[in-house]
């Protein structure tokens, strides 16, 4: 019924790559062609099932415009997941992913799960970034990767859910601690954790986790 965890997300990338459409497609199951430019940040949320546990994803869609960069950077802190979005039909948006990645790594905690997202896969005829090239970049930088289309919905859920699964794994291993505000993970129906519980969880993590 009620969610057990909250996972916080940020979506970053150049202006016009489709960040807001991605969020809206995922949280509201619809696409709007006429979305205005995001001013600062926009918030969306949806509750999903991850390995039998209910998780609420709280997502910050950030403005890609340069003039909002300094204020939106403040939202990176405390994100458990980060989606770095580029437009497959505009090479310059992919070229600047390195800058976005550097920004993200510098402002999030070391265990934030990051995914490279190539949006607008429906524009295959206008493609300027190949799948192979992006996979290579993702592998080199230890990022998850998916191509999707906010327009027709292809792989949008996967972008968020595979990231959420990875976050969930890290919570189970104790790598991401819900008690730490910087982790971007929060327990909702918190039975107050005491020292014994923490120790127990850590021990269990050591014994069973393949990470």
């Amino acid at each position, binding site marked *: *019924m*009620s969610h057990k965890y*909250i996972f916080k997300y940020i979506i970053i990338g150049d202006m016009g790559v489709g960040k807001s459409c991605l969020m809206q497609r995922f*949280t*509201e199951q619809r696409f709007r062609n006429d979305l205005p*430019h995001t*001013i*600062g*940040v*926009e*918030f*969306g*949320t*949806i*509750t999903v099932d991850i390995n039998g546990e209910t998780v*609420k994803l*709280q997502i*910050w869609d950030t403005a890609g415009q340069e003039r*909002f960069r300094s*204020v*939106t950077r*403040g*939202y990176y802190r405390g994100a458990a997941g980060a989606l770095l979005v580029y437009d497959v039909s505009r090479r310059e948006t992919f070229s600047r992913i390195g800058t976005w990645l550097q920004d993200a790594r510098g402002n999030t905690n070391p265990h934030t799960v990051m995914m490279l997202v190539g949006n607008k896969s429906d524009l295959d005829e206008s493609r300027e970034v190949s799948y192979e090239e992006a996979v290579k970049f993702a592998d080199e930088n230890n990022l998850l990767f998916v191509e999707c289309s906010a327009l027709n919905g292809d792989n949008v859920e996967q972008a968020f859910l595979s990231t959420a699964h990875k976050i969930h794994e890290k919570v189970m291993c104790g790598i991401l601690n819900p008690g730490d*505000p910087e982790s971007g993970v*929060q*327990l*909702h*129906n*918190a*039975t*107050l954790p*005491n020292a014994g519980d923490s120790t127990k969880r850590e021990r269990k993590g050591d014994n069973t986790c393949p990470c």
Partner: protein
Amino acid sequence: MKASSNLSLRRRELLERLLDLSTATFDEQVLIVNKLYDTPLPTLEEVLLQVSHVCITHGEAEIQDLLRNFMLWIAAQSFSAALRLSWTVDSVQKIFGLLGLGDRVKEIRDRIESFAINRRGNVRDGNDDEVTEAEIMRKELRLKLYNEERQFISIVTHLSSQLCQHPDKRKRQTELKRKLQEINNSLSTQSIIYPFGGVADPVKWIVNIAVDECVVFSSRERAPFLLRCEVILDDTTSMGDPVASKLRLPNGSFKIAADFDEVFTPSYAQEGSGDEKDMKTDGVFQGSDRDAFVCAFGESAEECVARMRKKSVFGKHPNWSVVSVVVKAKDDLRQEELALQLIDIFNKIWEEGGITCSVRPHRALSVSADSGIMEYLDGACSIDGIKKLCQVSSLAQFFNEAFGPVGSERHSKAEMNFVETMAGYSIVSYMLQVKDRHNGNLMISSEGHLVHIDFGFMFATSPGGINFESAPFKLSQELMEVMGGVGSAAFNYFKLLLYQGMVAVRERADDILGLVSLMTPYNTMSCFGSDPASTVQQLRSRFRFDLETETDFALHVKELILGSVDNWRTRRYDQFQTLQNGIL
């Protein structure tokens, strides 16, 4: 007077529109929904239970979409309304899931949150430059407040549930304090507010739990507890958008005052230095009065707050104050919430009519299917508790000992308060058919007011499923004695107030009927019984619209009184409660 009359007119208007939705044509419904946006926010907040119920349950799909958008618009206008809507949805989600509306409710729940954080609909069209950095950063503060407020409420209600596992009362109390101290340890960095209040109210930031003042109440199956919290009152903003505060800084610390930059520093050096209770003798009280009074009510609210302030590390802040709530788990508070809303409306009707008949409004908040919080009635004790604590054999004896001899100024004032609230709750009990009126559910305030609590059985439901308490309202011999018995001036005053109060309520019957009938679709509350339409019809019949003259109505009220005075079923029910549950 003018302001409150205006508000009641807007409430009437809103209720009529909501009711009209079920009978209007499609095009008319569209117009009605559009007109809903003209309603003042305080009116929407007052009727939020009904608004949310209509928005969730309306049958026409396209209109339901419009109503859902309206509900989300409310969440964008008022942060406190958004919180309440989110808790309302948490409370009804399971029920509506069983009734086939689960998907609708889930979607609403997620979007209430995003509308509350984004405050969509408030953003000005066009010029992006008008959006300041501060406004952008407020979204993060709003999410922090939303998450931490809901987590805090979830933790304390869960704690009430956990305490049930300890059969021993002392163990419960020890465990309560231990857990509350743990919660306290992380409060300084958190954003938590006292959740009652609307766009017209200042924010009360919870900064500390006064652990030593928190008590688990005795109960067999449940462990409700009193939660007393220290707050900083913030009138630089409202519950409509708490993070717009000019008193609280983004890092959580407080300024001394909004006009100055000086930051308040809690005096942690004082922590742990519990001053001994100052038993200052107050010249106003006689010895015996003092004994009975203190026995029932303990220290006064002022004394309690003064003592707490001295001990508090936040106590030196000029806006420091205290709030108290009862936390309940394994208890469905939706019905309590409805009852207290209706009681508040009754009280407003009497105030607007200039009638001294009254009740003591307080609020409940259901936060899940089986938990919630209620405002605590400070300075009040149940009749049952009074008899046990003060070793008095009757309530009248207590009044004499606590408020002074009959005829003294204090006694007369207390008696007046008793009569006025006795009349108020008699009308409430009759109109809402409130049951289970034993002396554990009747409180006396330190000023003599009578206050009814616990509205678990009303309208169609009764304890054990048997409608044994069939008197119009409880008017036991004991309660009569406090008023001086039949023929006394106080009892005559009671009868007059009952008549005046009933007339006033009758004139505003549509408000009461509207509030109740709007909650009946899908029949999600047990108090409506198996046939909600019949329940509403019976409520309507209690207004006696068939009586055409004032004289006839006056005779009717007289008959209600005669049927209640020392009613034998009332007497038997009290005796049953004494034998079965030890309630005196």
